[in-house]
């Protein structure tokens, strides 16, 4: 797998390169900002280097150190819908993940840098992203689930449906979820349908609904930062 990396910390970047290459991936491009990365993988000249399968973006990069990674993700997706996008962050807040999901609907992941400790796991997450799945860091999801809920649609979900939705948010397939929860795939499917129904999503458009459910989940959970709305 060919991977392009944009991170303003050279040390972290080199560590990441070591980790990825130790796992058999090939880092084709390194950049210290989103713009630099975009310039490298979408060069003006025709003799462009090998197109990466996925890009890994730092959330906070120069010049403002706020959400540059998300902007870069949106631009890359707009220019080449086939490149998987992974944003690495040190922030476990749902709001960034939510912004990212809205900017880039599929084939996207949001992981915490702290959790990038297993080379094999990182590669498998990247593969799922390249395959079009949505990947959300388990820590972020745990924090969302741990939140006290005051009101809202999320409260209409029962605990089992919530578990299913949380795994959907992590980008797991129905089969994967069934395995995790020791359920039959048909039961998982029923739960998924029920979640869609409770969140008011169109039952027929299952692919996009997965994303929408995750977004709804992120948004609703995120909104509970603010009160009652």
């Amino acid at each position, binding site marked *: 797998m060919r991977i392009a990396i944009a991170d303003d910390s050279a040390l972290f970047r080199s*560590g990441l390169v070591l980790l990825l290459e130790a796992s058999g991936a090939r880092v084709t491009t390194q950049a210290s900002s989103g713009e630099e990365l975009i310039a490298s993988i979408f060069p003006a000249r025709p003799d462009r280097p090998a197109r990466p399968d996925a890009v890994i973006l730092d959330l906070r990069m120069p010049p403002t150190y706020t959400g540059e990674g998300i902007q870069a993700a949106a631009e890359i997706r707009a220019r080449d819908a086939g490149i998987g996008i992974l944003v690495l962050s*040190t922030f476990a807040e749902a709001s960034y993940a939510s912004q990212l999901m809205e900017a880039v609907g599929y084939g996207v992941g949001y992981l915490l840098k702290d959790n990038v400790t297993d080379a094999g796991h990182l590669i498998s997450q990247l593969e799922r992203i390249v395959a079009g799945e949505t990947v959300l860091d388990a820590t972020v999801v745990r924090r969302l689930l741990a*939140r006290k809920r005051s009101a809202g649609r999320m409260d209409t979900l029962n605990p089992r449906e919530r578990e299913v939705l949380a795994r959907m948010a992590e980008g797991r397939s129905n089969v994967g979820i069934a395995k995790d929860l020791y359920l039959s795939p048909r039961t998982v499917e029923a739960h998924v349908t029920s979640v869609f129904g409770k969140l008011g999503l169109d039952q027929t458009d299952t692919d996009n609904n997965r994303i929408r459910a995750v977004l709804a989940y992120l948004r609703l959970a*995120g909104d509970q930062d603010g009160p009652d709305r």
Partner: protein
Amino acid sequence: MGAIALRRNRHDPAAEPDGLREPSAAAIRPRPLRFYLGIAAILAALGGLATLAELPEWRESPTLATVNLVMSLTFILTGLLLRRERGQRGVAWALILAGVFRSLDFIDAWNTGPWPVYAVVFGGIDRVFGGYALLRYPRAALGRIQWAYLLGLAGWMVLSRGLVVVTSTAQSTGYPASAWWPTISANPQLSEIFSTAQNIGDAIFAVLAVILLVRRLVETRGLDRIVIAPIIAAGLAAVFAVTATTIAQVFSSISVGPTDAFVAESLVDVLLPLAFLVAVIQRALLARNLAGLSARVSAGADLGRVRYALRETLHDPTLEVLDVSGSGAPVPGPAQSSAQSSALSSAQSSVLSSALPSARADSRLVEVIRTDAGAPIAVVIADAALERYRGLFDAAVRTSGLALRNAQLQAEAARAELDNVRASRARIVAAALAERRRLERDLHDGAQQRLLGLAARLTAAMSQTEDPGATAAFAGARDELGLVLAELRDLAHGIHPASLVQGGLAPALEEVAERLPLAIHLDVAPDRVPPAAEAAAYFAACEALTNAVKHARASQARVTVHVTASQLEMEIADDGAGGADPAGRGLANMIDRVSAADGEAGIDSPPGHGTRITLRIPCG
């Protein structure tokens, strides 16, 4: 001189009906040498006349003649000095005439011709003029009762004495036969009856004089009272002296009184023109009060102080100084002299009537104090009697106005200074905030990224070895690194939470709530406010919630944040032990932070009933 009853007390002359104004202004103005020379010439002429009139008296009783001359001249001098004071011309002439007629009182010393008759019949007429000055000064006109009294006195003196004269002869009255005497029918019995009636009538007029004088003193207020008190005292003394002389005459049973009694009476009488002189000079010297006023209001003038100082200076306890600076209501023009209610706006009238429930605004003196630009600052409302001291009043108001304007300028300067301090504090707060954010970012994007890179390297290295010992060592190092990262993140978060910068109060407080062992209900508006306000509110909430856990041992807390167009309102309430000390380090710190953002904090923490902290931070 004849037997007389009352000597001087009141009298009345022609009053000027128009307002009496501006006395002291004229009195204060320096007079040319010519003025004094003129006075000296007049005094010399009249003094010569008086001496001539009493020439025989100088032989008979030099003391009495001297006292009389002094008295006449003092009256005339006082009258001349007063002549130029506006509104007091009538009084001035009354005093001059009193002096002239006084010197004629003793013309009977010539003992020949019509002089003895004149002295007996008209010998007391100077008292009518003296009484006029006494009862009127420094007013514009006499009252009706006083007029009636003076006319009655004049009539009575001429009538009673005339009746005695026509029923007696020169000899029976004590004069030589050479004196002309208009005897109609010499009848000693009748004459005695008339003489007794004359004494009784004189006594009645003396009592009336005392009543009128005392009433005048009681009715007079403020500066007027200060000015007239010595005159009234001298007038009362003169009435008593005259009465005493009359009694002495009655008991000695002779028409021509004992010279000693006349000397004593004259010595008392001379007090009257002297008192007038003192009063006239005193009025002129009232301007001295202004120096004291100026000293009192110059340091830190405010309306209360000015009001008090003006009351003291102008001796008017009813004087009011009203603040009109904020009213925007039109006020009477600056040249307003005597206030009329119609000249006041209705708003002002209501101010006046509320401030002075018992006073009628149209009977008061009103002056407006304005800024240099003409905007009204204050209105001074004083007793209308001060119209007679218009010069002093105006000068006092001008002095007060100057002080008030200065105070206003100082206040403006202080306000500007305060604005500067506020602005500089805001800059300091902003700089500190920027510094904290920079520190947080350095930790976050510097050290943290390096450590994360190190963790990735360790992970990569781990995958390169199969040796279990090495793998375990790598794993240990990586776990340790994880702890270091967590600590670093806590440190950075404490300095300035990134979530606050990124998402505002709502996500930042959510994080705080997650970390604390306390059920926290958040009701936080998602609106963003300027960073300084956000940071102040955030750290205040952190302090309050930490206290709730650490000190109050609360089990629940509620944080409410409400954002309006101009300010952020926050309330943090817990169900803990209460009794928080606002002077304690944590809370004092919190109040300082909120104040630094120009906000205010309130702490309500009754022991046993939880703690409620409210704060308002402007963010307009």
